[in-house]
């Protein structure tokens, strides 16, 4: 799958090339930008603008106030754009991996102390990593994250692979334990991450996310061997670079099917990181070609749904920590008591999930059909209020609405023919994922 963001990034490149002068290729630009960045990093505040600045769209410029000084029009435009994007989304279901395993590789070399991102690259990375982890677990409840740091030429394990967001957050909570030193080593840390994911079953995805601030890597052997090993092990590597594009980073991503991006500023850094949160579409396994062909990743998994013990039950030893606790979950097969779900039962190895964990991923599988905008009062039904929140619809049609927006503020569900206001339309599709009228 060609990484989508990649294309966008190149797009930015080619735009800025024109600004500098024709004939320069993307890579040359990167180096130029990089030199300037390094200058700035050393504290010499250069006045020269970054080359990408010309192509950079300022979000505050795109928002226009209307005559009354209200931003409502701009906000509604924004929502309409989102709605259009939803309508344009392919109707064919995309297969996504739900059980994900991710190793977060943090660059802890001295280059992370650069101040080109405020306050420092290092502090910003830690802050965004925390937000990333919280959001990642929210969307991938069955996933696990491990953290590896690279500093002083070695890769060091910062946090064990864990399905509990609190454990992962605790691993990167203390910034003094992660103080950047020395040179990074891509190979050492990728090998460490790769070996910690060796045992995982094939139906889960294995991913490495590298946040890389350095422009060098000191490796003991040929890093291309590591790259090939990752390809054979089906590990997807994604890199968010903070300085500039490096050929080896780009290659790591391209060959393993990951995404590569260079952060232009703080906001872009966060965007790049958060784009990696939704479960990736499963890699081109052309099952459609032959009906008989089997997807090698397809497997039937046995899962147990545990019984939760009440807080007031008599304390007993748990099988995971051997501690006396009153609360816990009972494995449905062997009745062993575990502290937290989702997990694998320590006794019978059954995968224990609670049904809410599974259900959280259902909305990826059963999306609500997009609502169609009702264009005029002639089409509108006789209902006076929104079918969801009962807000009264405007009686007069608005003028000058952009494409995809309804002039009468009504959006109709194709199945139940209920009409909704734009707030409910956004809420139903982005948050609830089930239509109030259809009720399913």
């Amino acid at each position, binding site marked *: 799958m060609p990484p989508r963001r990649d294309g966008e990034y190149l797009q930015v490149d080619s735009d800025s090339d024109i600004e500098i002068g024709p004939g320069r290729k993307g890579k040359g630009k990167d180096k130029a930008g990089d030199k300037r960045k390094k200058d700035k990093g050393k504290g010499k505040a250069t006045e020269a603008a970054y080359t990408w600045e010309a192509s950079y769209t300022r979000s505050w410029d795109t928002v226009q106030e209307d005559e009354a000084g209200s931003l409502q029009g701009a906000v509604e435009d924004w929502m309409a754009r989102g709605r259009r994007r939803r309508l344009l989304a392919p109707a064919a279901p995309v297969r996504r991996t739900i059980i994900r395993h991710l190793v977060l590789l943090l660059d802890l070399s001295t280059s992370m102390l650069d101040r080109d991102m405020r306050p420092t690259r290092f502090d910003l990375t830690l802050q965004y990593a925390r937000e990333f982890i919280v959001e990642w677990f929210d969307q991938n409840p069955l996933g696990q994250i491990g953290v590896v740091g690279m500093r002083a030429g070695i890769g060091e394990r910062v946090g064990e692979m864990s399905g509990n967001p609190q454990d992962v957050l605790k691993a990167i909570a203390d910034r003094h334990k992660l103080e950047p030193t020395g040179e990074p080593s891509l190979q050492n840390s990728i090998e460490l991450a790769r070996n910690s994911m060796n045992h995982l079953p094939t139906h889960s995805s294995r991913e490495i996310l590298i946040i890389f601030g350095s422009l060098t890597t000191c490796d003991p052997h040929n890093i291309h061997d590591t790259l090939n090993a990752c390809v054979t092990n089906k590990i997807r590597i994604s890199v968010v670079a903070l300085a500039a594009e490096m050929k080896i980073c780009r290659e790591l991503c391209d060959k393993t099917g990951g995404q590569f991006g260079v952060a232009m500023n703080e906001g872009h850094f966060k965007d790049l990181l958060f784009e990696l949160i939704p479960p990736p579409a499963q890699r081109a396994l052309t099952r459609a070609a032959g009906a008989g062909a089997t997807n090698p990743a397809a497997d039937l998994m*046995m899962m147990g749904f545990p019984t939760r013990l009440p807080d007031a039950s008599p304390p007993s030893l748990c099988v995971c920590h051997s501690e006396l606790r009153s609360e816990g979950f009972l494995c449905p097969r062997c009745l062993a008591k575990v502290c937290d779900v989702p997990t694998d039962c320590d006794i019978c190895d059954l995968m224990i999930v609670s049904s809410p964990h599974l259900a959280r991923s*259902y909305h990826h599988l059963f999306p609500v059909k997009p609502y169609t905008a009702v264009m005029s009062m002639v089409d509108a039904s006789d209902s006076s209020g929104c079918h969801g929140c009962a807000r009264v619809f405007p009686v007069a049609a608005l003028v000058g609405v952009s494409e995809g927006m309804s002039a009468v503020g009504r959006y109709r569900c194709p199945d139940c023919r209920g009409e909704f206001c734009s707030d409910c339309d956004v809420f139903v599709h982005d948050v609830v994922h089930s239509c109030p009228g259809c009720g399913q």
Partner: protein
Amino acid sequence: MDDDSMGSHLSVVIDLSPTHWELSSREAPENTYPLTLATFLSQLLAFLNSHIACRHENTLAVFGAFPGKSVMLYSSSNPVPDSLSTDVNANSYPPFSAVDSTVVQRIMSELDLLEKDEEEAPSALVGSLVKALCYVNRITLPPSSNSKAQANGFHPGVLPDPRILILSVSPDLATSYIPIMNAIFSAQKLKATIDVCQIYGPNTVFLQQAAHLTGGSYIFLERRDALLQYLIMSFLPPPSIRKTLSVPTQEQVDFRAACFCHKKIIDIGFVCSVCLSSECYLPAATSNNNQLGLVFCQPLPVCTTCRTKFPMKTLTRLNAARPLLATGNSAPSQSRLTSGPVTNNGVGGAPHSGTNGAR
């Protein structure tokens, strides 16, 4: 605590399934404590009035789940139509009488609309729950984006801890599992609490989960004649105060899922790794509810949702794991199930040998 300046919002979802209310109102021997819809409504209205009376800023919305239809019966933000507020009594507080007359008249008119002969559809509890969420979303949105509400002279602000109270009389509806789960997660995002009061019928697993996951309380009504007391003691105080009041919480929450193929609630299921839809194979007559749910579960050769065929090796492995727990399962069904992928074995089995070896 900023509760001093702010009211709290309460949405009430009433399950109005005529069949179950009829069953609930039957006299002993069937019911020890019969509760008719009329008694229920009078007790409920007293509860709603006390919510409004607690604080001037408190807001209220009432949703009714009728068979196959969900209706908003009352909301404090929508003005009451003049036709409904006719009986002005000098001795009654106008907001109380507005709530009472609107709710009762809307329920009556909706119930009159129901077709007598038709087979009753299950009540649209999910629809009204999602509507209640839409309404909570509407009132919690920053005021700038709903200028229309401001124009009406209604300034919702952002009310702390909105809550939704579900008064249910129907049993679980397995088809509503996914929407209920979706509703629960959106309630979590909105920081809304879902309280559940099961007035009649068996415990509902889904609503138990809803209350548990959103930090609300689930109460199974044992003494139905004391409904009002349950309501006022447990559901009237906003969640912030409940910690100090020790409102009853659930003893045990059932975290089992419903299977896709039979919509039955299961302990151990088989899950397709591609689409992760829970699958199981249950014979029609399984009242066996013990913890070894695998006794009646069988792996399927083809995922019913995404039509992915599973490798033969997994099937045989899972089938082999079954007899450890099961005794004497029906042989014909097994042969029928496994005959499917045999022809496919050459294609599907080969790439998987490594996987199974690794385990």
